[in-house]
């Protein structure tokens, strides 16, 4: 008791920190805060704030130079949306202290080398952009910047390197030109022209197989989904045509021109791009997401064109703001809405476009899906008079274009829209979408509405769905999520399993033991066997059916009830599903009983995998089975499959981590032993001690061997899972293609589009894992004999890495 009182007084660990901070740390925190916050809303102008801060920092240089260098290098890397604010600051400091300017440039080059070595290519882009803007601030001499760019572009001449490597170097140069193009052209136009024509040549010969896999819409209209380098090139071309006049970027250094042009400039040291290393992970190519143009914002400022450099800069900055503030949705929303220069652009449209661009990005959004939902809600709260309307307009637009939207992106749209609606009492003008009622239910529009209502129901309840849509939509309302117990149906008494279902049901209710229940189940006839040979537990589908249906029926009340049931009767269930057929049949029974409640099916399958009643391959085989063909395009099928693959992946990773930890432990132990032996060379205990530690080592080595085996077996299971999935896809797609060919029918049905995009989705969502097994996949499955339509998907996937 008394101990508790003492710790209460201490109030956790915080008190110590507050009392004993030494002066230097306080000042460093202050410096950090001052630098990070410059440029934010203030009563004084940005220029006077920068002037003031430059003065403060100059005064602190003698004592805190290294700290200031570090902070400035960090903000260059981590706050790219405030690039020009900080380059101006560095410019002012350089004007006051030439040596500091030189040291900063050196520190930046060191940081650049580090980021490249650590595969932090996105951050490296920001650093290079920062350096290039320092040319505008008279910190770096233009010719030396041009020289660095020339070295970057020369990477396009390298042979036998992945395309994504040279792509990156081209990107980094082109994406800096909006900031520094004018200055570089003024000083070195001949060199720049030569540079750009080299880029043009590279872009022409570049391979773009990857593009179809990354496009959100397959249609070219209304907005082509352009490959990112092609789009950027068009933007730079246009900028060049406009004689590098760029009016959007906020350039505080212009106000200080008279001071800055007096400063002495530094030359960048010659910078050779690091050579290609086999473990380098260059950024994947992208497709530019566009959904709005100048016709969409009804009043107010006009949206810059798709090939204007302003569009590029705005989108870059908005992406950077989200990257910086995603963890704090209120700040993120506020920062987005206070974008400098917002009065000259239809900011709400840009924000909505950038957010959806990220949400729909392939292979995966940069941040968690749900972040975007809550960010949009915060934005609606801050701009209740304008943002909701833009969002509604965007939703309407996306609904209209569902026919050509990528299936994976449609899924994300379904999840976003239903979650969003659940925060706004499901209010929506459903009547506007009544066109979806006049086409087949398997077409994209009615399918979308159906899935939205299903997801919405999960967040509310069935009657709510009936209430919120017009009566004409009744065909799209999901089924009531109730259990279907076959042994209580109309003519259930004539079913072969009926009598035992009653007995076993009562047994469960009366808390019979597992043995008792097993003996009851022995009475279930086996439709698979002709004679009465009870040779142990051969696969008896009826037994599984009777037991599982009855058990799940009794536990149907809630997820928790069902989970308890699975746990309580785990032994029986495992016995029943020892064979692969047993596992498959179990899944079939779960589906039959709960087919009106896909959410329940998903959580039950999850539990059954985690408790090893079924395995991942069984789930994959079940989903692709003929019995499930009619559900194949429903969202819940793919949620289950991807969740299953993720569980498999996590399982492998977990054992790998255990193995690494055991190896580390052994190494440490061996080092320690060597150390001790050195210390106590003359001790008589030496022999005993050595024997003890040898035993310990032996135990660990055994453990490592066991873990190694476990890892290998898990990886084998993982590889097998992917093989099963890909094989099934190939079978299904080939069947369809052959059938269409012989019948001279167009292959492009809604089903085909959905199926081929699901195949793409497997590659995209699990590309890191699949990469390990590329050799096997290529040798066994994705061979040249494969139908070109299917092989194309594999080739697109490979193109992402090249």
């Amino acid at each position, binding site marked *: 008791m008394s101990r*508790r009182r003492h710790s209460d007084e201490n109030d956790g660990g915080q008190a110590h920190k507050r009392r004993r901070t030494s002066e230097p740390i306080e000042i460093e925190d202050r410096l*950090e805060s001052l630098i990070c916050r410059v440029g934010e809303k203030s009563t004084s102008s940005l220029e006077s704030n920068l002037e003031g801060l430059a003065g403060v920092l100059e005064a602190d240089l003698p004592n805190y130079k290294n700290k200031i260098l570090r*902070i400035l290098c960090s903000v260059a890397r981590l706050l790219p949306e405030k690039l020009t604010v900080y380059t101006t600051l560095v410019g002012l400091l350089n004007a006051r202290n030439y040596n500091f300017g030189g040291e900063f440039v050196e520190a930046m080059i060191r940081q650049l080398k580090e980021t490249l070595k650590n595969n932090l290519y996105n951050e490296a882009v920001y650093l290079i952009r920062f350096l290039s803007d320092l040319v505008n601030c008279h910190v770096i001499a233009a010719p030396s910047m041009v020289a660095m760019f020339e070295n970057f572009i020369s990477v396009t001449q390298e042979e036998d390197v992945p395309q994504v490597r040279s792509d990156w170097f081209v990107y980094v140069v082109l994406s800096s030109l909006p900031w520094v193009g004018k200055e570089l052209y003024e000083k070195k136009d001949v060199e720049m022209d030569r540079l750009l024509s080299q880029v043009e040549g590279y872009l022409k010969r570049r391979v773009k197989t990857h593009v179809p896999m990354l496009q959100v819409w397959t249609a070219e209209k209304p907005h082509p989904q352009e490959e990112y380098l092609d789009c950027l090139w068009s933007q730079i071309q246009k900028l060049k045509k406009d004689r590098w006049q760029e009016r959007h970027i906020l350039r505080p250094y212009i106000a200080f021109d008279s001071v800055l042009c007096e400063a002495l400039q530094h030359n960048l040291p010659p910078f050779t791009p690091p050579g290609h290393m086999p473990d380098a992970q260059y950024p994947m190519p992208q497709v530019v997401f566009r959904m709005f143009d100048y016709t969409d914002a009804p009043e107010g400022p006009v949206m810059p064109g798709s090939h204007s450099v302003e569009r590029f800069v705005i989108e870059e900055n908005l992406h950077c703001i989200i990257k910086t503030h995603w963890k*704090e949705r209120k700040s993120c929303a506020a920062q987005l809405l206070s974008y400098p220069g917002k009065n000259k652009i239809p900011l709400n449209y840009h924000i909505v476009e950038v957010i959806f661009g990220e949400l729909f990005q392939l292979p995966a959004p940069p941040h968690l899906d749900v*972040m975007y939902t809550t960010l949009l809600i915060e934005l609606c709260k801050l701009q209740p008079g304008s943002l909701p309307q833009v969002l509604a307009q965007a939703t309407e637009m996306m609904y209209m274009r569902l026919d050509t939207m990528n299936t994976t992106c449609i899924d994300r749209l379904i999840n976003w829209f239903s*979650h969003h609606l659940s*925060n706004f*009492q499901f209010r929506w003008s459903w009547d506007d979408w009544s066109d979806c009622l006049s086409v087949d239910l398997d077409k994209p529009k009615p399918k979308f509405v159906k899935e939205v209502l299903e997801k919405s129901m999960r*967040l509310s309840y069935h009657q709510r769905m009936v209430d919120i849509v017009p009566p004409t939509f009744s065909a799209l309302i999901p089924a009531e999520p109730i259990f279907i117990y076959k042994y209580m149906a109309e003519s259930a008494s004539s079913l072969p399993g009926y009598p035992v279902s009653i007995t076993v049901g009562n047994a469960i209710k009366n808390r019979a033991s597992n043995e008792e229940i097993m003996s009851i189940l022995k009475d279930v006839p086996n439709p698979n066997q002709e004679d009465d040979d009870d040779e142990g537990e051969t696969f008896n589908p009826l037994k599984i059916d009777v037991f599982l249906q009855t058990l799940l029926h009794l536990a149907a009340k809630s*997820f928790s009830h069902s989970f308890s049931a699975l746990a309580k009767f785990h032994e029986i269930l495992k016995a029943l599903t020892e064979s692969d057929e047993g596992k498959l049949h179990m899944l079939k029974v779960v589906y039959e009983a709960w087919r009106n409640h896909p959410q329940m099916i998903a959580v039950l399958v999850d539990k059954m995998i985690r408790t090893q009643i079924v395995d991942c391959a069984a789930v994959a085989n079940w989903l692709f089975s003929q019995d499930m063909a009619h559900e194949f395009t429903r969202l819940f099928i793919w949620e289950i499959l991807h969740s299953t693959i993720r569980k498999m992946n996590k399982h492998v990773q977990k054992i790998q981590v255990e193995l690494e930890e055991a190896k580390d432990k052994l190494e440490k132990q061996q080092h320690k032993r060597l150390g001790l032996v050195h210390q106590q060379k003359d001790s008589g205990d030496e022999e005993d001690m050595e024997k003890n530690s040898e035993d310990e080592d032996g135990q660990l080595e055994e453990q490592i061997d066991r873990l190694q085996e476990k890892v290998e077996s898990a990886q084998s299971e993982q590889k097998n899972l992917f093989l099963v999935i890909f094989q099934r896809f190939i079978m299904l797609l080939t069947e369809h293609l052959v059938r269409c060919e012989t019948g001279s029918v167009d292959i492009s049905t809604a089903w085909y589009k959905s199926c081929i995009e699901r195949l793409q989705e497997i590659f995209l969502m699990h590309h890191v894992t699949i990469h390990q097994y590329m050799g096997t996949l290529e040798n066994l499955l994705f061979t040249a004999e494969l139908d070109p339509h299917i092989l194309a998907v594999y080739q697109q996937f490979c193109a992402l890495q090249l």
Partner: protein
Amino acid sequence: MSAKLNALNSDSYTDVSQYRDQHFKGNRYDQEKLLKQSNTLYVGNLSFYTTEEQVHELFSKSGDVKRIIIGLDKVKKTACGFCFVEYYMRGDAEHAMRFVNGTRLDDRIIRTDWDAGFKEGRQHGRGKSGGQVRDEYRQDYDPARGGYGKLASQIPAAEQRNTF
């Protein structure tokens, strides 16, 4: 390489709140430690009618949910407006604090907070009437949480103005 900046690392949505479970078995230090490592969230301001399924759907958006325990009235054994959500990974719980806390479930703004971990018995309301303490003293009428607060509903309407 330059270090991370404290000023830029704000993640306030995942901070521990001021609330501490007074029935926690252990000292303050233990409680703080458990809260900082916890994978479990307390979820409050639920409607009495909110189901485990609804909670599961919403909270699965931030990661795989290990289990949900619906809070029950100690007397009636019916849902009394709170629950615990336990994740397999703490990172997923943190995402829930950032993106689910303060949004709506069943039309109500719900609140999430770190919990030191579920223990048998903690699924019961601690109010005198069996529900949550907050529902004992509540003055407003909330149809999704049994109407008036327990104390308020015991005092006849005419006298309510004269109390306090």
